[in-house]
């Protein structure tokens, strides 16, 4: 075959393109609905557990919006306004605090089990392990967990997944309270000036303390799929939750909620929405948004029935529309539209009781 190289671009702008666009949206809707139904049946009703982040601890407190002149005004973020809040820290996978996992912090601007004007879901790591519904589906397909090892094929195929894992996983942090959590995916921020903007959020400790649990050279050289506890590990399965309870018992835990903003433009690169890429801090500095003060932990039962949703967002701060399962914004679309699974889980807990607390036993790497 003669491959003397010529290239041309085939441009498709036609009625066919429009049909394709709606078809892709339909596929996204279909995937979301199908996934939600399957999760509802097998996860929420039969398994009676969350899809992920099962190992966690809830707490309550308050959120106070700071008066930051650099922040674009928004009616929801009225300076000095205080909201009651509930948060939940968790490990993204496995039920063992000493394993190498991504940690999370979910925030609800309400002291309620579900209803809220504003929910945020954040994880450790500046970048995520997956970036769209399509990649999430692959992530789910290639999970194949065995003895604390999972996603072998996913990491083998997708360097972005490895990068996300290395960025997000934490090994034996001292406390949930000194970790940095990121929303990773952008959301709308249409302020009082009606200008389209996008926002990313992060939560950092109120005091300037070093983040613990970052992967060291050993863990970085270790394959990402190996999430097992270290040999000779003495920390218990619940050490992190116990630490958090003790810390709150001795005083309020404070965090800073910060925001990055980007003004939307016609020539914005699609990569702007890619949660596997950070926004440069030079051009998108982190701005102080609020102070979170946590006063009391919730009981195990209260933690279990606590549910967060990106559906609980004002429209002007809500999810950016997605066009297909490959769209970077499709992840948030799926998160927003899978409430049935959350509600079913809570309903099954209310009906049949919550799962037992995790015992401090030697059944590790589970």
């Amino acid at each position, binding site marked *: 075959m003669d491959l003397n190289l*010529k290239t041309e*671009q085939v441009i498709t702008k036609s009625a066919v393109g429009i049909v394709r666009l709606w078809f892709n949206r339909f596929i996204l809707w279909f995937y979301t609905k199908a996934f939600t139904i399957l999760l509802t049946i097998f996860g929420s009703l039969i398994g009676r557990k969350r899809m992920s982040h099962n190992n966690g601890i809830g707490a309550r407190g308050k959120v106070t919006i700071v008066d930051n002149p650099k922040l674009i005004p928004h009616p929801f973020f009225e300076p000095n306004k205080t909201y009651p809040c509930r948060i939940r820290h968790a490990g993204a996978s496995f039920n063992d605090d000493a394993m190498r996992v991504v940690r999370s912090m979910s925030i609800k601007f309400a002291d309620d089990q579900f209803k809220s004007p504003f929910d945020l879901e954040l994880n450790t790591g500046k970048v995520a392990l997956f970036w769209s519904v*399509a990649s999430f589906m692959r992530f789910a397909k290639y999970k194949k967990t065995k003895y604390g090892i999972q996603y072998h094929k996913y990491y083998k195929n997708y360097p*972005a997944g490895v990068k996300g894992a290395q960025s997000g996983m934490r090994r034996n942090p001292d406390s949930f309270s000194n970790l940095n959590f990121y929303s990773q995916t952008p959301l709308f921020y249409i302020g009082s000036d009606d200008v389209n903007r996008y926002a990313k959020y992060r939560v950092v400790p109120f005091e300037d303390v070093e983040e613990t649990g970052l992967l060291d050279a050993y863990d970085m050289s270790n394959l990402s799929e190996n999430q097992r506890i270290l040999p000779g590990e003495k920390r218990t399965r619940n050490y992190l939750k116990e630490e958090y309870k003790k810390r709150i018992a001795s005083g309020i835990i404070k965090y800073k909620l910060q925001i990055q903003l980007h003004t939307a433009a016609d020539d914005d690169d699609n990569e702007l929405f890619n949660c596997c890429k950070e926004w440069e801090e030079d051009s998108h500095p982190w701005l102080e948004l609020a102070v979170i003060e946590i006063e009391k932990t919730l009981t195990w039962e209260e933690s279990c029935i606590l549910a967060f949703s990106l559906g609980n967002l004002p429209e002007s701060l809500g999810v950016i529309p997605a066009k297909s399962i490959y769209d970077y914004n499709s992840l948030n679309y799926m998160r927003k539209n899978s409430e049935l699974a959350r509600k079913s889980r809570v309903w099954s807990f209310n009906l049949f009781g919550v799962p037992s607390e995790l015992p401090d036993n030697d059944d590790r790497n589970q």
Partner: protein
Amino acid sequence: MNQEETPIIDDERFKNCFVSKNVNYAKRKACHPRLLSVNHIELHKSKVTRDPIAFIGLWFIGIYWKIKKKLKSFQNWLYPRKLIIYGTEKNSEIIGKLLFGQKTHDDVVPIHNMHLEFWGKTLLGSFRRFGFAISNENGEFSISFDLHACQKWYITSLRVEIYHTGNHIYKDGKPLNKYILFHTARVKKADLIGLEMDLGKLRLFYWEYDYNSPITRVIIKDHDKDAPEEYSAGRLETMEKQFIPIELIKLKHLAEIALIKGDINIKKIQKDYPLNLTQCMELKEKGITRSDDWFGERFMNGMAACDFDKDPNDSEKYWVHYHWNSYDKTQDYAMPDVDIKFKLKANGLPTPVEITLTGPLNKHELNERPKRVFLPTDGEKWMAAKRLARVSSALYTECVHHLCITHYNAEQFSIAAHRNLRLNPLTNLLFPHLKEASLVNHTADRILIGNGYISKATALTKKGILQLALQNMGTQDWKNWKPIQPISEKHTFAKTANLFWEIITSYVNDYVEENRTKIVAHWHEIYRFSEDLVAHSSPYFLCNYLTNMILDNKGNYDANKSDWYETSQRMDQSIERPIINGEKKSMSHITITKNPKDVKDEDIDNLKQACSFIMYHSSFGHTWSNSKQYDDIGEVLYCSLGLRFGTSDEGALGPESDMSIAPDLTRSTQMMWWSNMLSKTGYGFITKNEDNDINPKLIEALKAKEKDFNALGFNIDTIQSRTNI
């Protein structure tokens, strides 16, 4: 005729015996048996099909393959592979790394500059091209493509295709890249989800060195399945057509030998094969080919084309040696060490004046090494000594000049070149002359070396052949090499060789200068080519005798001591050998410079020399030792590759009429089969340019000197472009 004045080669009576015929491409007849594959050529009985039922079956299989081929052609015509890239934006990438296949040896050796294409196939069978890339110096590649374009519902399958890079054909005098598909890596459509998808390390079983072989060879487990290259279609077809008539003769003899031993004899075997040069001449004058003059002429200008060293003790004489003592041997054949002294006659041709044979020549002295000196005045013993010398020379020529210097040299250059040269314009220069060598050598492993013909028809065992090959490959180097210089006006081999050398060096020089910028731009490929060539070349070898005779006490070449030693056509002993892992290597570095900016004139000169060296050997060098086989070993009683001890007390010194000395009937017909097959079949000649891959400038340069070649009795149309037979 006064033989002092007129060489036999110029004698009008024998003129038609010397007419060199071009190889004819035979026309296949319907009734001819079929050879399914070159891999089915066997020393004893090749796998040809003859019976009617097999014929019918083969006919159907042939029809099936023809239909399949036609359907493929039809599909290619209906859906030609267009080179446009489908998709509007590059939002995804397929990445990976190409490595050579052998983890134990090549674990981190990348395959650089390999061309890759990302294609998808549609429901209807057409193809869409989504992207392409070239692997970098570390073997890493990244193919950017439009995710949405390859996720269309009608795209059924996706694949990354990896191509042999560096082959070409000539069209209108210009080289056109010819990419040949080497490997396909399937990509699951569902796995393409945006960002990067890593195919991981793709280990290609691509021109892998065979570390189990003491000499530089490529691994081929199955010729038809995993060889790194393929014979051109024309070569396969031609070979099969040319080979069948020869095979049929051999099969007939083998059948007769098995059934009616008493009736068949060497004479009858000989008669069934075409008349060769010596037989033709004997018909004109009996005994002419057994004469001293003919002996000398053939040693100088025949297949043997010896390296004549001056006698250190008598500068008027020349000597030629064939020493076998240090190689592993059986006691089935006489294989004495042979030393021949020549003197030049007035007409410039050599004549033998003394032959020394050291070693057992009959069954009674198998454990001894008697030394016998024969002179022209010794009558029949002199005739017998000459015969033993001819046989020794023939075996040496086959094993060393033919097998090692042309075949194995071509293969070691071929492996290094194919592993490393891809974007460099040097591919256009070298590849047409290096191709197919690995394939023919693989066939030779099975039926000639190893447990093949040589170990059955001579005293050399498989081990002995390898020892011989290893030592001789340890004397091969391109640096400062040039063909043997004429020792007289009648040294036509030397003159022809130098004429060809002049053409090749001039052609290579012009080519390199014309493409110098590009060659230097891709110097990294040449650096790696040189590294592979040196690292995998055989250990340097110099026999004890020469070590004492031409080197000083410190092991350096002493030109004063070695004024008798013929330095042309041999390794330059004065240059330092590269040392790899503590071992001196035979091949010199072409360059030690990685960076194009640091390339010096010396590197370019080295490159020209190395290219000229291998192009000379793979084309003219091989043609000479190959095509003249039938002339010099096409008559069993005149010259075979081995002589037995015989049943008489005289042993191997008995007359030609003693059939117990000559090879047995099976070996005789096999030898005739060999020499016919190798000399009278062929495909891939420079001037014919059957595959359109020879630079027209080389053809022009050859044709410009056609008259000069003709004057030397050499037909340029017989010069093969590569070593493939």
